[in-house]
């Protein structure tokens, strides 16, 4: 007897044997710990830890959802959150799995259909996305079990369907995009799209709740307006209610839309859009038109080179600077990790300051009497986060050069890389922030702004030393330990909070103290760089 899943695969035009053998191999590989891994735990344990964190996040969400009394609204808000969250994870973590270059080399010479290859990759991603979605939804499911009984089981099924919907929506978009641009340009366009979307999602996360804050959610009821039928989160809310038997006539329509869109979307993606998938994979990995062009060699006498000479203390440090600058320009994944940070900082400032558009002049006047300029210093710290990704690359084997280089100044490369990162991402952000700071608070607060910004840079530099970060571009990206990275981020945020507190205390004293400390800043920064350079070579 053909199982329902195999029947579905057959309808979708997938080779069942190929599908299962490939999925089995992929999962087997995922759960085998790499013998040379720097991580102490295998992927399975890492995944379990991550699922706990997601469940914790889900518990936090309940606090907001608990305030909403209307079930339909509660479910709609949750599914909206789920779609956005899963979409973000898909873009940042799983796009590489979908277009896995390494695996393309293995599978493209074999007789595997485009459909099978695409569906195997979708299924592989779905395994993880469903786990994440279920972990996130578990606390809310428990809440629903207590308040609505059986509905919670249907809710969990809807959560998996919602994860699948997010996946086909994103992949359908990718495949649609591939029809309009050349395969060679695809990865570049995708990269910029990912950066832009990450920023938009972050902005909506931070800003939308603020503008909804004043709404009286306790008494807010779901209204069956026409545009509600266009919202995917509402479809899944309606589906949950309808299957449980507590639905209205509107929920019947919403369920039909959800099921119809899922079925049609899957069919369209797997049967029609998938046809160009292998062509896209093969052509996009064979080189880029841009890569074929010789790299323009700029004049060595440019102002930037003079600046590098001024800022770097040795030739090795200069090399570290230039090496990092070249990576920033050409490494897509580095751009994807670092560029959004710049935007996040801007978004966080807006989220913290909560500008009142309706009464802007009195809002600004009120702001000028506060010490909220320190919030710019606080969020400016995001500009330093790029430093934490410097050690990672897709080509860690190239780092053999560090072992072979006959220099005792190996860590000058690291200090040069930090300087390049701060110059490219941190300094422009701080300069940009000077405009609103001077406009709102005037120049009298500048000593404290400089002090805060300078000490933030010192903190970023010292964190590299304290955490004994590896040399630039010497570690495989998959070696990034997400748990450890989160802990480091928390440590950084705790310390930056302490710095802001310190600067605030200085601002309460005589301005001369602030100025004296500012004068001492170059020395403190210089000493912190020296500590990075002085690291012993093991």
């Amino acid at each position, binding site marked *: 007897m053909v199982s329902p899943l195999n029947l579905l695969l057959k309808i979708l035009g997938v080779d069942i*044997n*190929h599908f299962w*053998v*490939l999925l089995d*191999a992929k999962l*087997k*590989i995922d759960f*085998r710990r*790499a*013998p*040379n891994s720097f991580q102490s735990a295998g992927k399975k344990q890492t995944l379990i830890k991550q699922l706990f964190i997601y469940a914790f996040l889900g518990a936090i969400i309940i606090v907001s959802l608990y305030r909403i009394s209307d079930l339909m609204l509660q479910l709609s808000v949750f599914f909206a959150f789920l779609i956005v969250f899963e979409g973000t994870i898909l873009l940042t973590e799983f796009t590489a799995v979908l277009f896995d270059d*390494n*695996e393309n*080399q*293995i*599978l*493209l*010479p*074999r*007789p*595997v*259909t485009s459909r099978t290859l695409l569906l195997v990759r979708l299924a592989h991603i779905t395994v993880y996305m469903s786990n994440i979605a279920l972990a996130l939804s578990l606390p809310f499911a428990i809440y629903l079990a207590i308040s609505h009984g059986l509905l919670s089981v249907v809710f969990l099924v809807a959560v998996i369907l919602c994860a699948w919907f997010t996946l086909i929506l994103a992949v359908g978009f990718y495949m649609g995009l591939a029809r309009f641009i*050349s*395969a*060679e340009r695809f990865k570049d366009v995708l990269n910029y799209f990912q950066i832009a979307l990450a920023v938009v999602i972050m902005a909506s996360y931070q800003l939308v709740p603020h503008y909804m804050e004043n709404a009286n959610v306790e008494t807010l009821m779901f209204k069956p307006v026409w545009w509600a039928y266009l919202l995917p989160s509402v479809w899944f809310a309606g589906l949950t209610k309808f299957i449980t038997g507590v639905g209205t006539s509107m929920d019947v329509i919403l369920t039909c839309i959800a099921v119809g869109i899922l079925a049609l979307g899957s069919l369209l993606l797997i049967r029609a859009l998938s046809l160009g998938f*292998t*062509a896209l994979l*093969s*052509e996009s990995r*064979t*080189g*880029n*038109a*841009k890569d*074929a*062009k010789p790299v323009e060699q700029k004049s060595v006498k440019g102002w930037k080179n003079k600046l590098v000479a001024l800022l770097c203390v040795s030739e090795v440090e200069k090399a570290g600077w230039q090496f990092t600058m070249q990576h920033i320009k050409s490494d897509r994944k580095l751009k994807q990790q670092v560029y959004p940070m710049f935007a996040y900082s801007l978004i966080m400032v807006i989220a913290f300051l909560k500008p009142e558009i309706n009464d802007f002049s009195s809002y600004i006047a009120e702001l000028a009497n506060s010490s909220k300029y320190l919030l710019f210093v606080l969020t400016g710290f995001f500009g330093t986060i790029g430093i934490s990704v410097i050690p990672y690359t897709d080509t860690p084997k190239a780092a053999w050069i560090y072992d072979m280089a006959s220099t005792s100044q190996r860590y000058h490369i690291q200090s040069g890389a930090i300087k390049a990162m701060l110059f490219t991402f941190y300094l422009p952000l701080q300069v940009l922030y000077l405009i609103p700071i001077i406009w709102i608070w005037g120049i009298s607060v500048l000593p404290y702004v400089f002090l805060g910004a300078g000490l933030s840079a010192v903190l970023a530099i010292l964190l590299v030393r304290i955490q004994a970060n590896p040399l630039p571009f010497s570690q495989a990206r998959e070696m990034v330990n997400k748990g450890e990275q989160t802990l480091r981020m928390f440590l950084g945020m705790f310390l930056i909070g302490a710095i802001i507190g310190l600067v605030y205390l200085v601002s309460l004293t005589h301005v001369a103290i602030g100025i004296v400390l500012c004068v001492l800043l170059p020395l403190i920064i210089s000493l912190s760089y020296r500590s990075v350079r002085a690291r012993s070579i093991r």
Partner: protein
Amino acid sequence: MTDISIKISGLNKSFGRGAAEKHVLKGIDLSINKGQIIGYIGPNGAGKSTTVKILCGILTSFKGDIEVMGIPLRGNDLKIKKMIGYVPENGALYEALTPNEYLNLVGTLFDMSPALIGERTKSLLAYFEMDQHANQRMDTFSKGMKQKILIIAGLINNPDILFLDEPLSGLDANSVILVKDMLTRLAQQGKTIFYSSHLMDVVEKISDRIILIDDGKVIADGTFEELQQDSKASLEQLFAKLTGGESRANESVAFDNVFKD
């Protein structure tokens, strides 16, 4: 029934667009008979690997016509992939798997029965003296051991045509002898071997026919003796002469000056 296994007419391939367009293959015309061992040679960037990838159905966009075993490649790439084997240079493997697991996966993708996969895996691993490593994970293997697995994966479906792109990369001398012997035996069984390499001595010894490409065009095609034209030159010397390497060799004086500081 035709004796031609590969027929290429007016093959052109470009990467990029506009000013950045790189024309890699510029009108290749070839006809290759069954049972021939073709040595496909050329300088770096001449278009060897691109030709092989197109013939194996990995690169799907190209201009021109290609027939493999009498079947047009365009639109039939899956059918053709079932009839061929491909051994890439330093190709990727699922390294967390064991050879047995990996070869089982590859065999299944060729729709082979589990029994046949098991039988072939066992024989081929034994031939390449890898049987004792059959259940070890491949991420612990040396480069040469991984290359052997790539060769076995290229052979597991008993292909009519075997494409090899620098297959001897990382292999020790004994393994090179094994591969050379294997290629000769496969050709005797009527299989076509398309061997792309930089190793002139191996190409010279095993090839029935040598095709030399440079800058995306075929600049020489024939048996080793035909290419020699009574000159007694080695293939390496012929290669240098035909691709301009001879004149570059005369620039050794310029190289000597590099370290005169």
